C-alpha cells in the first residue's frame, strides 16, 4: 500500500543522524519533526531565524512574534537561538546544516529539482529553497510519486523552471525510496505492498533496480 504523507515523513525520519542540524521545508517535510527516532538528537533550523525549534504551542500560548518558515506558530526548545535572516542563510549557505528536506513538483535523474513556479499559472516564489538546494550537501525530496493527473514527477529532465541543478541526493515518495546519482534514480526501498513494477510504471526518469528491493520498515 502506498504511503500517506505521514508515512513519507516517518520514512524520512529514519534518515536522521545524531547531532544533525536539519532544515525542514513546508508541507510533508514539516511532519518529519514528529517522528525523530528514539536516541537520536537533532536540532531543527527554520530559515526565518530559529535554531532549536520546538513543537506547536499549547492552545492560548501562541505568540504572533514566534513563527516558523511556514508562518505557523511554534515554540523554542531549551538551548534555542534566534537570529536575523542573513545569519540564517549564512548557516545554510555555509553548509552548517547537515540535512535539508523539501517538497518538489518535479525531480530529474541528474538531481535537478523544480518547485517554485508554473509559468503563466502559479508563481509563489522560491522562498529559501534556491539557497537550500544550492548549498546543502544532503538534500532529500519528500513528495508524491505522481501528480494529481497521475503523471510521474520523477523525470529524465524537469519541464518546469528549475530551483536548483544536480543537487537532490535522495527522493522519498509514497511508493519508494530512491537515491539520485550517476544520472539515474536508484531504487532502494519499496513502500509496503508496492511492487517494483508499480514503481517502474510511475517513474518517467531512468530507474536502476537492484536484484533485491526490500520493503520499507515504517
Amino acid at each position, binding site marked *: 500500500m502506498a504511503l500517506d504523507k505521514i508515512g513519507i515523513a516517518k520514512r524520512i525520519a529514519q534518515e536522521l543522524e545524531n547531532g544533525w542540524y536539519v532544515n525542514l521545508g513546508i508541507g510533508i517535510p514539516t511532519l518529519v519533526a514528529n517522528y525523530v527516532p528514539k536516541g537520536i538528537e537533532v536540532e531543527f533550523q527554520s530559515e526565518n531565524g530559529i535554531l532549536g525549534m520546538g513543537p506547536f504551542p499549547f492552545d492560548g500560548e501562541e505568540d504572533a*512574534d*514566534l513563527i516558523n518558515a511556514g*508562518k505557523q506558530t*511554534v515554540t523554542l526548545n531549551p538551548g534555542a537561538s534566534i537570529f536575523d535572516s542573513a545569519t540564517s542563510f549564512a548557516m545554510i549557505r555555509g553548509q552548517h546544516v547537515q540535512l535539508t528536506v523539501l517538497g518538489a513538483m518535479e525531480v530529474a535523474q541528474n538531481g535537478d529539482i523544480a518547485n517554485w513556479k508554473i509559468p503563466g499559472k502559479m508563481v509563489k516564489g522560491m522562498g529559501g529553497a534556491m539557497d537550500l538546494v544550492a548549498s546543502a550537501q544532503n538534500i532529500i525530496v519528500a513528495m508524491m510519486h505522481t501528480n494529481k493527473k497521475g503523471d510521474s514527477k520523477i523525470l529524465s529532465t524537469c519541464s518546469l523552471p528549475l530551483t536548483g541543478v544536480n543537487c537532490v541526493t535522495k527522493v522519498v515518495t509514497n511508493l519508494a525510496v530512491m537515491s539520485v546519482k550517476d544520472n539515474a534514480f536508484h531504487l532502494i526501498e519499496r513502500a509496503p505492498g508496492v511492487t517494483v513494477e508499480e514503481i517502474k510504471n510511475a517513474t518517467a526518469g531512468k530507474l536502476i533496480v537492484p536484484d533485491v528491493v526490500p520493503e520499507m520498515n515504517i
Partner: protein
Amino acid sequence: MNKVVNSVEEALEGVTDNMTLMLGGFGLCGIPENCISELARLGIKNLTCISNNAGVDDFGLGLLLRTKQIKKMISSYVGENDEFERQMLSGELEVDLIPQGSLAERCRAGGAGIPAFYTPAGYGTEVAEGKEVKVFNGKPHILETALSADFAFVKAWKGDTEGNLIFKATARNFNPLMAMAGKITVVEVEELVPAGELDPNFIHTPGIFVQRIFKGEKFEKRIEQRTVRQK
C-alpha cells in the same frame, strides 16, 4: 543623538511617489504595520517595494497592493496573496523574485558598502539569467548586487531615543538588514525607552543605522497560521 519623531506622519515625511522602499517582516511577523497604514492613507503611488513577502489580501503589503500603489515588488515568496498573483499574472505588477538568502544578503550588502558578492543560490535557474558566473572551489556561483532603498521601514520590539533596537523572537527576520540599507531608516517600536536603558551588549541594531524612531500607535500582530496543540 535623538532620533525620536512624534508621529507616523512625521516619520514618513519625504516619502514620495516612485520611491524604492524596504519593509521588514517575514509573512505578517514583524512588519511595520503603522508605516504601511500611513503609506496607504497617503496614497503614495508607483512604489518599488523590497520585502520578503507581500502580505495577505487585507493586511501587510496587501493593503498597498489592492490600492495599486505598488508598481514593482522585489520578494522571495508571495504565495499567500491572491490579489498579488492576479496582478502579477496579468502583468499589472512587475515582480522580481529572488532567493530568500540572496535577498537578505543583498540588503545587508547594501548597508555594508559591499556592492556585490557571489552566491551559489540560483545558479542554473532563471535567477541566474544575465548574471556573471564564476567558479570557486569547483562550484559555480553567481554575482548578486547590493540592494538599497530611499526609505527602510522597520518594526522593532524596543528601541531607545538614539535608535538602538531590540527585536522579539522571529519578528527580527529581515528588519536588522533593511535597517542597514535604508538611506532613511524609519523604525516603529512597541516600547520606546530613554538612551541608556538597553544593555549595550545586547543591541540587535545599533542606532547609527536609524534616522527616525517612533512608538507605534497600535500593533495588530495578526497570526497567519495559528497552529497549536492541546494540553
